[in-house]
């Protein structure tokens, strides 16, 4: 069964360092999302991506965040200068069309020290 894969599964970094999280969505999916979940809290929307560009972003997705699709298949979420409050589980999700089931990856746990 096709699945969304994310790497790394866990990353520990020092405050102020840059972090890149990677996602390989399901190949025929057209809509892509990044969400984050601070431990024990709700799943928060960060950014959506469609047709090779950002379609919508939340207030959380400020200038320190960026998302790219460097090779037409993989996605990356970059956090330029991490803060303690960026510690969270980051989920990549995709779906075939604008509506319908979201397929989530297993997540990347980011710990900022």
């Amino acid at each position, binding site marked *: 069964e096709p699945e969304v894969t994310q790497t790394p599964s866990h990353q520990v970094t020092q405050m102020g360092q840059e972090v890149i999280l990677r996602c390989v969505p399901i190949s025929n999916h057209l809509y892509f999302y990044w969400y984050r979940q601070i431990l024990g809290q709700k799943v928060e929307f960060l950014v959506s991506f469609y047709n090779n560009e950002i379609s919508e972003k939340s207030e959380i997705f400020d200038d320190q965040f960026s998302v790219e699709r460097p090779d037409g298949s993989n996605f990356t979420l970059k956090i330029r200068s991490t803060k303690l409050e960026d510690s969270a589980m980051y989920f990549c999700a995709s779906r075939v069309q604008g509506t319908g089931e979201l397929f989530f990856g297993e*997540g990347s746990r980011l710990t900022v020290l």
Partner: protein
Amino acid sequence: QQPVQSPQAVILREGEDAVINCSSSKALYSVHWYRQKHGEAPVFLMILLKGGEQKGHEKISASFNEKKQQSSLYLTASQLSYSGTYFCGTEPGGSYIPTFGRGTSLIVHP
């Protein structure tokens, strides 16, 4: 704006039933339901697109009242495997962004 879920937590014994509610202040196009086990990704349960539609998956079903912008998830004869956090995700009309509630923690005891 995120949907509001209730209750925050439910504790059951195997075989008991539970209802989890989700409401939104916006007119909705769809409602999603997901279950998340501790340390894992959310897993899709079902999606409801029409007002008054009810869907079922084994002993888990859901309804969607489009006029009231509310959805309810029904878990019948709960099993230990039902334990987890249940999230509803709502999409207002014209938005392709599911927004999730704070979740309902469900614990099923033997």
